[in-house]
């Protein structure tokens, strides 16, 4: 009985993924991978995701630390806004970004006067990814810093360390494993971003057409391109999950 339950759940989740690999021959896969559209989308996805992750970690780590360690008025409100993108439909996030930064948006119309356009550019791709994916890192970082015994930071302060020094030399190294897990989840979410990107950045090959967008277009026009891009995304996601597992295992062994 238990075996059947485990088999049913596993098969339900695994079968669609496995069937992807049987829908296309190795020759067709190799041919499609060499298609310039696929290569462009792959590079665009990888470099926008890396930039999104770098910005999230750079600003998100100190934000999460000071947020976790200080109480201030409106903290609950800040928490809510940080968590909101996790439950918000990505398409709504895209519309929201467009309403603010679009050419006729609240902020966008002023930027437009100075010749700055954000919507439907590569910058919009990155902004959509950060908006949708950063909460995964922020939540993880916040909870790690909250769980840390304040004695370490208090001791460091009596030894003369500033808050930024404590963050860099005590708080981050002591939570490094968990932070890496959070960063990897953010990377994965940003890589798979579709709804907000298509709304806010559009679908221009080489400029805003990331891999998930190419999957959507490919399935409609050229099935092999859609399948090949899907398989590439599955492979990258698989690697991400393995990295998370290894990091978690190392953490468990250390503790």
């Amino acid at each position: 009985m238990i075996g059947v339950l485990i088999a049913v759940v596993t098969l339900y989740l695994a079968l669609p993924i496995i069937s992807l690999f049987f829908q296309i021959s190795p020759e067709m896969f190799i041919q499609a991978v060499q298609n310039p559209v696929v290569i462009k989308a792959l590079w665009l996805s990888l470099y926008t995701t890396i930039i999104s992750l770098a910005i999230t970690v750079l600003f998100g780590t100190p934000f999460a630390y000071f947020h976790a360690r200080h109480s201030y008025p409106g903290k609950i409100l800040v928490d809510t806004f940080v968590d909101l993108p996790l439950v918000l439909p990505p398409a709504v996030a895209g519309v929201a970004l467009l309403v603010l930064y679009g050419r006729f948006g609240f902020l966008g119309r002023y930027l437009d006067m100075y010749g700055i356009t954000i919507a439907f550019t590569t910058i919009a791709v990155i902004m959509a990814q950060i908006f949708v994916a950063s909460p995964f890192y922020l939540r993880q970082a916040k909870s790690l810093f909250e769980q840390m015994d304040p004695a370490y930071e208090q001791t460091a302060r009596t030894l003369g360390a500033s808050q930024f020094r404590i963050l860099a030399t005590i708080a981050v190294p002591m939570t490094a494993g968990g932070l890496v897990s959070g960063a990897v989840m953010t990377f994965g979410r940003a890589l798979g971003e579709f709804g907000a990107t298509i709304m806010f950045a559009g679908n221009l090959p080489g400029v805003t057409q990331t891999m998930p967008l190419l999957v959507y277009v490919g399935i409609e026009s050229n099935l092999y391109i859609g399948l090949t891009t899907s398989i590439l995304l599955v492979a990258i996601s698989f690697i991400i999950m393995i990295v998370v597992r290894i990091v978690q295992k190392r953490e468990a062994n250390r503790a």
Partner: protein
Amino acid sequence: MLEAAIVKRLRDFTLDFQLNVKSGEISFLMGMNGSGKSTILNIIAGLLRPDSATIMLSGECLYKTDDNINIPTEFRRIGYVLQNPAVFPHMSVRDNIAFGLRTRHTPPSLVYPKVTSWMDKLHIADLAGIKAGNLSGGQKQRVALARALAIEPHLLMLDEPFTALDVESIHSVKDLTLQFVREMMIPCIVVTHRIADSTDIGDWATVICQGKKEWEGIPGEIPEMCTICRCQ
């Protein structure tokens, strides 16, 4: 010399306490859990803000409500070993001891000899390269003590330093504490809830109950009625 007069309203009572500790002397602060002992140390260290206080250390004013003086923790030069000795687990023993010297911009050429000398004094030289997270309780306590003393503090404060240690380590930490407090001629406050700890090395003892001074005197003469635990 440390002179402190502290008032702070806590959840269940008001902490209203005066404490004077002479240079080169160890003063024990005793009382039951929740009596306000650690709060006093945290206020002296600057980690907690009092409602009103005057704190003077070696003639320097660290905190004075009336004159709006509040020297930040980072600049108070207090060696403070908390109840969790909080050795930084990801750093080696050597880097732990060097931490306070580096934050105070000690020239790198001086850091190494100072760290080596403190490791020798506390008999932990053989642990120098080991990650501090892998040490035993007694070793951690000695690393924390070395780290606190390496900054050449004007005051040493130890919060329950003997609780998690075996008998041998307790003797060793007590002897070392006494030796360096006398040598460096700095005042020292040790918080504990066990009378037995104070009688060996304490010059003075104060018993605190619900934020108020209940008794003070020579450690061996604590009267029966005092609230602290007499377990060994």
